[in-house]
């Protein structure tokens, strides 16, 4: 404790700088996308000096998270909560080049400092359990069977000057079945210094966020050492969501979709049959109009006073020609590239933004003038199951490189549950339409086979896709049969298989960034043979009956004496006599115990 205090004293001068206002940064970028959707990217970033962090003076850094990080020896942490599917065909490249998104469900990877693998596992368990409590998610279910140690796919984002890389253990866990919901957003907002009460975070609301077509919440904690400056621990929180504008504009008190009345229908008036009672709906990309209040359900409150005043809190990416109406106190600043504009907001005032419909006579021109055409991603990927039956199956991933002249080199990582036993020899990559000799597409394979009930399969493939071509990556697998207790309550739904992680490598080998683009495929639903769950009782009753039958027959043969029909005791032939005879017998038995059997023939008559 004394050491702690001497440290405290030593740090007094440094810490008095404390959490200066410029340490916090928040920004909302709005980008209208085709098909009447809108991408909203929230980004919050705050810092704490490593020395203050180690002295437990957390100031505005979330204490609950900081304690977990310290307790579990975590050097770098990445946590993702995602929902939905990014439609790359129409929405183009992903925000942040895919670096801030995860596969459906929850994804967690972290670099832990530990001397041995066992210690790392121990710390990982601590970390997942503690985060599970903090974020109200089932992260504690990330056990050995869902944890892998990726070799090629991930690189630390932060600077780790004081730690040798040998002691840094990367662990990666994923829960594809987890349903992300409001209870995960609330703790997420609590980590922000201004909570959800001020700044762009005041727009966030569980109803809208989890109603989005695609959303991803990310938390990244990494140490950053600026050249010449003191090392800081940076926490970056990101929320990206793609909102369906029409859907978001539905009034909250009347959320049930109903057909719009006739006069509100948007009709293509150029059609020859257009009249009062016939309508050909116009392409619904035309005419995006919205306001912040409509799509988020509320306007933005005053800016968070901690933010760096030089960073404009809200930016909008629309062509320069479009007009935007702003609330009082906001100033529009157009960027020189002509693609985006930002808004500076006077402290203490709220903010509202209205993007009116673009009135244009020429429908062909309006599409380009209305929104910025999305960038083409470096790679398209889709993954699906092939095959049929309950015993075997296959996985096929279609990877398409849209670029006409550059090849794409990437790492494809699968973290499969142990009950999908893959046949590694069947892994094959082929170019569509090509046959015959070609340069091998797969450069390197890292494979760690599963151990039943203990470890997941880990498959990392470094491969390339030539320009303007489509590659099919396929492999087969066998479905294993689970034990009775290993099935979840909804066993017939199937088992979620986590998304494949695709990390596109930087073509410049000496570049600062390891990956230029990240993406996830969708997760899969693998159906395994499910037993009839009343089976144990059926089996008990069936075997018992069989045993009883066999035993009863055998026992009776062994112990009974067989006599001729007329030698045995007489029993009444009608039901009445039978019952009467039994009653008398019973009475006799009650009266005095008398042996029944061959001697009682005359007595039964009496």
């Amino acid at each position, binding site marked *: 404790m004394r050491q702690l205090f001497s440290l405290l004293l030593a740090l007094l001068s440094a810490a008095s700088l404390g959490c200066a206002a410029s340490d916090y940064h928040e920004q909302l970028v709005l980008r209208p996308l085709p098909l009447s959707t809108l991408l909203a990217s929230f980004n919050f970033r705050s810092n704490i000096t490593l020395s203050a962090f180690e002295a437990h003076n957390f100031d505005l850094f979330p204490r609950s998270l900081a304690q977990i990080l310290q307790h579990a020896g975590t050097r770098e942490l990445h946590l993702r909560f995602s929902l939905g599917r990014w439609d790359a065909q129409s929405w183009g490249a992903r925000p942040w080049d895919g670096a801030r998104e995860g596969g459906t469900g929850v994804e967690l990877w972290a670099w832990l400092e530990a001397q041995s693998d066992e210690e790392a596992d121990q710390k990982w368990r601590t970390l997942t359990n503690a985060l599970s409590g903090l974020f109200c998610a089932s992260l504690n279910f990330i056990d050995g069977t869902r944890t892998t140690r990726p070799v090629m796919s991930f690189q630390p984002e932060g600077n780790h000057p004081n730690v040798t890389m040998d002691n840094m253990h990367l662990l990666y866990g994923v829960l594809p079945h987890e349903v992300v919901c409001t209870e995960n957003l609330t703790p997420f907002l609590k980590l922000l210094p201004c909570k959800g009460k001020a700044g762009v975070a005041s727009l966030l609301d569980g109803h809208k966020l989890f109603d989005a077509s695609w959303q991803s919440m990310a938390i990244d904690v990494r140490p950053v050492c600026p050249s010449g400056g003191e090392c800081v621990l940076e926490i970056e929180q990101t929320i990206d969501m793609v909102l369906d504008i029409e859907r978001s504009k539905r009034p909250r008190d009347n959320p049930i979709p109903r057909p719009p009345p006739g006069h509100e229908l948007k009709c293509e008036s150029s059609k020859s049959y257009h009249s009062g009672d016939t309508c050909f709906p116009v392409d619904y990309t035309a005419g995006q109009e919205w306001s912040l209040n409509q799509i988020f359900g509320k306007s933005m409150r005053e800016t968070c006073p901690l933010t760096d005043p030089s960073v404009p809190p809200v930016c909008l990416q629309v062509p320069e020609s479009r007009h935007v109406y702003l609330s009082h106190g906001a100033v529009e600043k157009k960027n020189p590239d002509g693609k985006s504009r930002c808004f500076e907001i006077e402290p203490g005032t709220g903010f509202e933004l209205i993007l009116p419909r673009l009135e244009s006579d020429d429908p062909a021109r309006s599409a380009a003038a209305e929104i910025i055409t999305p960038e083409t991603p470096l790679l398209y990927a889709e993954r699906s199951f092939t095959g049929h039956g309950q015993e075997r199956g296959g996985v096929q991933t279609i990877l398409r490189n849209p670029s006409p002249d550059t090849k794409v080199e990437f790492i494809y990582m699968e973290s499969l549950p142990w009950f999908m036993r893959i046949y590694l020899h069947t892994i094959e990559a082929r170019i569509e339409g090509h046959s015959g000799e070609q340069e091998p597409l797969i450069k390197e394979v890292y494979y760690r086979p599963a151990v039943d009930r203990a470890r997941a399969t880990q498959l990392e493939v470094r491969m390339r896709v030539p320009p303007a071509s489509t590659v099919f990556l396929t492999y087969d697998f066998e479905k294993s049969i689970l034990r009775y207790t290993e099935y979840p309550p909804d066993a017939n739904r199937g088992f979620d298989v986590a998304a494949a992680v695709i990390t596109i490598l930087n073509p410049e080998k000496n570049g600062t960034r390891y990956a230029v683009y990240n993406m996830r495929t969708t997760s899969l639903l693998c159906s395994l043979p499910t037993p009839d769950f009343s089976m144990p009782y059926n089996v008990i009753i069936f075997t018992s009956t069989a045993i009883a039958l066999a035993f*009863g027959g055998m026992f009776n043969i062994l112990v009974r004496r067989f006599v001729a029909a007329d030698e045995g005791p007489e029993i009444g032939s009608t039901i009445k006599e039978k019952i009467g005879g039994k009653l008398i017998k019973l009475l006799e038995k009650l009266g005095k115990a008398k042996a029944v059997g061959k001697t009682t023939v005359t007595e039964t008559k009496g």
Partner: protein
Amino acid sequence: MSARRPLNNGATSAKSSPEATIPPTVRPETPSNDAADTTSARKQPPPEKPSDVRRRTYVILSFWLIVLLLGLPIWWETTTIYRANLPLSEMLDWADGKACRPVFPLRISIQANSLHEQEAQNLLRLTQHALDDLNDFSGHHLRLQLSPPAAKEAEKDDAGAALTIRLIPGESTTSTLDPYSPILDITYPPHTIPSATSSSSSLATYVASQLRATFAEEQAIISYLLSSDSMPSDHRPQGLTPEAADSLSKRTTRSLKHAPTYHLTFSLFTSGPLPSSWDIEAAIAEFMKPVLDVLSPIHNFTIDTQVQLYATPGVQNQVLTKEDLSSFINAAEWPLSPSIGGAPTVNFIVFVGNQTILAAPQGSPDETDRTSQSWLIPQWGTVYLLPLPSDTTHVSAEKLKQPLLTFTSHLLSLTGTPQSGSLPLRLSTLARIRSADLLLRASSTLGSLARLALALPSISIPESVADGVSKTMSHLRLACETLGGAEGLGHARIAEAEAERAFFEKSMVGQLYFPDEHKLAVYIPLLGPVGVPLLLGLLNEIKAWRKRRRERAEQQATKKKE
């Protein structure tokens, strides 16, 4: 015994078993004389061979032997619940306080450098007499000893003695308690020294009463602890007034559960965006660290600090009444989660706001603990309302002085430190109170475990629980022997931790619920169809055997007659 068949004459195809030797002449009659046949006496089957009867007996016996000797043990072995042996009666003895009589022998050394050996011995004897007369509580015992006059008091005496009395000749009889070390200075006029023969002395009485006053609070607390627990009544001290007991109970419920380490969390909450930084490190180092250093032999402390903006309290009133105070902490929104790791968390909250607290009515018992600025939440921490100008962005260490001094005094009462006496005395008293407390807690946990084991016969008790219980008991025994010393506290601490671990063993809860309906559903389908033939076979065999015996007896009787 015979297979009973419906005598429906021709319809019955008499399946001839090897035993049924039916002569061809005795075939069933034709249906026409059926009625006449039934009324007539039926044919008797031929008598059974004795070897057949014996064989049937053997068959039935061997089946039953297999069931009893093989089936039952296997069933018992596979379905029995493991229950480790617990020394239940001993455990209950601990819980009832029969196993240990908590006695706190306190050694008090007297330094009388100016007195002769003989005089000093005499004074000591008289003082001890006076003390014994005053004391009515056997658990708390003050024993005097004379320290060698030339001894270096610092090293030798502090080790064993709870208090050192320095007798210094002076003009009048006064006593002063050294504020920094456990030393009581008593001055005395030289003429008050008792002569070797006198049986009473005013100085001795004075010393005794001073000692008693010094340890009065400790004695009261310990006797309260013992009396509130299920100690037998002969141990119970008399003369604890209800008011004193009431205030003691308040104090004990307020104090945190004992732990070797406490985690202190200092939080600055504001309802708006400002202030966003504070000089907490400097303030802690200046105002709180001295006390923490003093407490360090008993407790370790870890500290963290945080600033939380936009924190709305649970009560928005300008003037807070006593009822409001309990709901002021907005537990749902304020991030005050306990720290991870085993250490209990003490929360110290500075809330920037100009609310005021409605002063407690005059004369209420806990008036001293409540200023108009802060209040203490039992076993949890303290809230301090700090009014600041609304444009303050940074809270300086100077402004934190008052809050931190309040926190420090509240920390002492949260750890259960007694209120009177000098600080070193208070701390040594704290150690003794804590060991008594832990001892009682561990004993009562043992008692609960024993009662649980008795009340739930179907609960499994794994070996680790028995292990924990035996460890607890051995440490309890050691603690009981060394009560009052540092060792005793250590043993009591281990005993308490082990007892808790044994009581909250996870695997005990797992098998708690296995309903009897399930057992029925599993056993009935098998035991019904198998058990009924076995049982009937046995009954019939017994009947047949008795019948045979009777017949034999009758035969013998007729033979005798003949």
